[in-house]
């Protein structure tokens, strides 16, 4: 089973297999013999090749949170098929944070220029204005004042460029 792990800016294609001696992670840099031993209360002993360390690990859906060597890491696991299917997000303005829509400043059909204010959102008492990523005509507005929206929710879509 293959997975793509997104770690910061980098992507790592990995797959896992078992041989007579245990589990092997095939990475783009070669195979790694690895093991994960639970120590209780979210603590694990993780080993990869010659390296070994204790870590705290928590998973939520496709996100893996790892506290290792005094640093916090978030890894996003992506199915390679999903990654191929997902199109670019050009032509849309997304919520940069989960929160509440305060006001919507554009209507479908409106011509906007890059940087123009589209939607005002609020989360944890912080107001953020979502601006047009590029010039274009608004195709649809997917939110209304008072709406609670999750992170990366598509707020406004643009018509495809002619």
């Amino acid at each position: 089973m293959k997975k793509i792990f997104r770690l910061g800016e980098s992507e790592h294609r990995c797959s896992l297999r078992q041989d007579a001696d245990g589990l092997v992670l095939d990475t783009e840099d070669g195979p790694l013999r690895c093991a994960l031993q639970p120590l209780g209360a979210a603590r694990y002993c993780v080993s990869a090749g010659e390296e070994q360390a204790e870590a705290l690990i928590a998973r939520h859906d496709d996100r893996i949170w790892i506290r290792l060597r005094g640093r916090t890491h978030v890894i996003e696991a992506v199915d390679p098929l999903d990654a191929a299917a997902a199109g670019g997000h050009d032509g849309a303005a997304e919520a940069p944070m989960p929160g509440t829509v305060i006001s919507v400043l554009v209507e479908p059909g409106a011509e906007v220029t890059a940087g123009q204010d589209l939607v005002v959102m609020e989360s944890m008492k912080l107001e953020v204005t979502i601006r047009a990523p590029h010039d274009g005509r608004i195709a649809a507005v997917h939110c209304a004042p008072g709406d609670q929206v999750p992170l990366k929710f598509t707020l406004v879509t643009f018509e495809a460029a002619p």
Partner: protein
Amino acid sequence: MTGAPIRRLLVANRGEIAARILRTAKAQGIECAIVRHAAEDGGLAPQLADAVVPIEGATPVAAYLDVAQIVQAARRWGADAVHPGYGFLSESPALARALDEAGIRFVGPPPAVTELMGDKVSARRFVAEHGFPVAPSAIEADDPGSFTQRALAVGLPILIKPAAGGGGKGMRIVRSAEVLDAELAAARREGERYFGDGRLFVERYVERPRHIEVQVLGDQHGSVVHFGERECSVQRRFQKIIEETPSPALDAGTRARICEVAVGIARAAGYVGAGTVELILGADGEFYFLEMNTRLQVEHPVTECVTGFDLVAEQLRVAAGEPLGYSQADIGFQGHAIELRLCAEDPAQGFMPATGSLQVLREPAGPGVRVDSGVVEGQRVGSDFDSLLAKLIFHGRSRGQALARARQALADTACLGVATNLDYLDRILAHAQFAAGDYSTAFLDEQAAELGDAGETHSTALLLAAAALSDGHMVAAAADMPRLYAQMGAWRN
């Protein structure tokens, strides 16, 4: 006059400050209740309270801002006093008055003082009239028609502030005249939403200032003392994330003058209870009055560490009508304390608030370590409230020892399942300028590149192994895979 002791206290707040107040009040044998909106999902404070009084609102925040409902909750539960914490109604003269009419004590200053200091414009005027230093300014209400011109006449750069503001909300620095109108409009919108008041004023912005504040306490009998200063210059979005005392910027002479000014302002205002005088200190050593916060401050624990006083206990004593019973000379200062605010926010995304679930929470412990937390492991962190999760406070005989304890403690801390500023806080502590105590309120912006997460890790192999092996599907698929096929290598099909 000494009033009756407080026996039943309603805490009209949430999160870490509610928990902190409950701990002191309960230790004094006071029975305690807390108000709670249904959106408050879990959390530590309701577990510590003897009773929970539900409140409702159009939004969760609105419930905590509803004076009538808080008074009703206090009445229904039979409270003889209400502690408002910070934020919400803590600086509301309306709550203090309504409680007074209901025969319930408000743990805070009299409404006249809250009113005077709550309006930033009248507070500045009051302070200036009493001969204390304030920065050059223009006030919209003086003549709204000429406000823009007068704002520019103050001299750029200027800082826009809501007249009814506080906590950095609606504040904007303007460095060029072209953006002034747009920034004024945005500040007005925020002022209206957060404070129900869109009036503004502008102040000359002091470049590379330090934010210094002084803790004061007054009783109902005319005594006012100070508990020294706090240095609060490490800020993002005008909000503090690290505070320490004593300030590395002050020499003994300036410290004495600043504390004297703060006590003078509090005394002139007839201050009662715990309060904080905030000041701006310029690079030239000059300082100006900024505002007075008529409540307990988020960062009060550093003061408690170095003075040994429990400020919540002092607030409750003052509210009960007791005299302070000590003088300025009785307040000593020992060592150095630093507070770090652990917040659910992503420094890599411009400190955007983050939501999630606190799947793993490990708080630090050890000598000189204090944790004022409002959360418990497993709790959901939503977008309804402020992003502050917990305060990590470190005390040492010296600044160096407090810092060393902080760095070790951060290494022992973990917060998984929601993005936090934990690693960012550690990078600040590790920064040479912070370690040297040489920083201003511009520090985080100026050092953004160095403080950013380089994203490099020497642990990639371990991280990938942990990610793959904690994936039940991947492990199960690997175990099920026919051995021969597996030996071909999974990428060769």
